[in-house]
């Protein structure tokens, strides 16, 4: 048994798990506030990555400015989608809203193909390229950065939800929209803000994922593995998405190493089914209690 190798594999699994967790935040925020599973998260992420690409190459902006602008752009995208597509669907069956996001992803893909074409591209490299060693164990520098960004962000979100009034408002809305509204919480504003913040999160993860894996109109499929992590963790739990994201990352890394890459998705989805049989609403998700 090569222990160093095992440690390295686990570390890299944690790193890619952080990517899941980071993108997963968008799913959770949106679900918490508006009870919508946004299947277009992958495509929003793609659009943001292309936006970043456009800013850094066509306009030749410095990277830090492009990152800020992309995050703002992601926020605007989230806000516009909420206001134009999701708000009018309020009260419709969740599956109809789910389908609206499917339609949206088709629109976003078409838009990107129209503006940037279908060619796969790479983002300018701004992340450090010097290998990181923890002890003797190698960690990819990009992955290390992703891990740091994801854990900082998630810690920040957790703090915000506990302390800040807006975070409390979000939790109140998630618990009971009617009650929250009668307590004077501006529920529609909570809807908008959570979509805007989710948009910003997709922008951030879009830049990171694009700079690791390159960008193409079909990069949105990444959203799917993330969705698994989110479901396992619980659709409405920020802490859950972190734990589940990291767990899925490590499981995939171990499976990919010791069984082979073709087993990765298979084991991921088997994990999903098992997790759902044991904890139907995820590890940390709120159990929906039904009354007659």
């Amino acid at each position, binding site marked *: 048994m090569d222990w160093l*190798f095992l440690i390295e594999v686990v570390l*890299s699994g944690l790193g890619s798990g952080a990517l899941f967790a980071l993108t997963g935040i968008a799913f959770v925020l949106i679900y918490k506030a508006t009870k919508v599973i946004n299947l277009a998260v992958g495509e929003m992420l793609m659009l943001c990555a292309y936006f970043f690409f456009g800013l850094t190459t066509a306009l030749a902006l410095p990277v830090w400015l492009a990152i800020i602008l992309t995050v703002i752009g992601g926020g605007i995208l989230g806000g516009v989608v909420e206001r134009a597509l999701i708000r009018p669907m309020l009260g419709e069956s969740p599956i109809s809203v789910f389908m609206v996001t499917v339609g949206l992803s088709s629109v976003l893909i078409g838009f990107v*193909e129209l503006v940037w074409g279908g060619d796969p591209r790479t*983002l300018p490299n701004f992340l450090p390229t010097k290998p990181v060693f923890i002890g003797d164990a190698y960690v990819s520098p990009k992955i290390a950065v992703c891990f740091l960004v994801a854990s900082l962000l998630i810690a920040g979100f957790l703090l915000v939800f506990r302390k800040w009034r807006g975070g409390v408002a979000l939790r109140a809305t998630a618990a009971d929209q009617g009650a929250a509204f009668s307590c004077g919480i501006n529920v529609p504003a909570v809807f908008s803000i959570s979509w805007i913040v989710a948009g910003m999160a997709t922008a951030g993860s879009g830049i990171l994922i694009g700079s690791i894996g390159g960008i193409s109109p079909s990069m949105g499929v990444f959203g799917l593995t993330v969705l698994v992590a989110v479901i396992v963790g619980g659709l409405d739990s920020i802490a859950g998405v972190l734990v589940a994201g990291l767990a899925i990352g490590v499981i995939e890394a171990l499976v990919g190493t010791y069984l082979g890459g*073709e087993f990765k998705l298979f084991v991921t989805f088997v994990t999903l089914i098992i997790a759902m049989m044991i904890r139907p609403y995820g590890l940390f998700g709120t159990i929906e209690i039904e009354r007659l």
Partner: protein
Amino acid sequence: MIIFPTRRKLLSYAAAGCLALGIQTSARAADDIVIGASMPLTGAFGFAGIPLNLGIQDYLKIANDAGGIGGRKIKYVSEDTAYAVDKSIAAFNRITASEKVSLYYGDSTGFAKTINAELSRRDSILMAGTSFATELNDPKNFPYQFIPGPDYSQMIGILLEYIAKTTPGAKIALVNSDTEFGRDPIAATEKRAAELGLKIVGKIATPPTSVDVSTEVLKLRRADPDYTIFHGYVLAPLPEFMTQMKQLGLKSKFMGTFWSMDNSIWANSAAVADGYMGVMPYRYYFDTEGTSPTLDKIRQLRPEYQTIYYTQGFLTAMLMIEAAKRTLDAKKDLTASNMKASLNSIKDFDTGGIIGVPISISGNTIPVGRVYQYDGANKTMKPVSDWIKIAK
């Protein structure tokens, strides 16, 4: 009962509308030779579909300006398929319903396999397409199809030949995407490597959704190959593999196959791609070595760089027209079997410089190619081997 006639009328309008749509045929000259195409202009393969389409159009324009085939004009009808098999077949049906199609360009291995029975039944259409799948290189089961280059196994065969010559007994790692496309050449590669005395030290499959490759890199680090051969990708995740493996100081050289060998896709990651090698059956747009009248013509027609996907379309059209021309010159009917026989009669044919050596098509492929290496400083692919012919 006033309503009845009205409703009937409505129905009859609807029926008439359906008929009008169904029966509409476009006007055409009776003796045009028609090339149909299911083109992946959108979807996962859109990056190649658009230049492919352009390449075919450009060659046909040149051919038509030169008088077509024995005075008969060539007409090109293409339709977008979004790279989905059912839509490709819909396009095939629509185009063949309104035109008398003799030649066809298909957009995927799935389409080539699905339409094969129909091609055999019709015996009127000769087909080629985007797919270099090993499975299609089988004149018995795919009698009316051809591949305008080596198939994927032959491509890797060419790379192995090159490796065996430059580094005998080298250690090789195979990285393939876990798709039909990616897994295509694995079995043939293992067999050929053993014959050439090369050692396969690692086989890695990556699922199509994966982004991060650091786990795979860890495995490659332990295997420490002399060559890492990627297949089943276009661009991602090759740059990330190469970046990380270079960071770790691995001495491995990197190789790829046709779809990841275009010059332009590497322009943004030139530093990383420096030294990347791969097999290419065609000469690049900017290749001025020797005389190449066809490349000159392309450069004259299109002053800006054209991808190798464009070249693939261009050459495919050239071979199709050549097959049709030889058939008509021999005073035979344009049936698929006659055209395929004519195609197979191509011996030491000069493509005008698209392929650097005269070609012969004995079966379904042109088993020839050359190893190129990317020069990051000049952002161009440079040949590092001579043209390598593979014996089947």
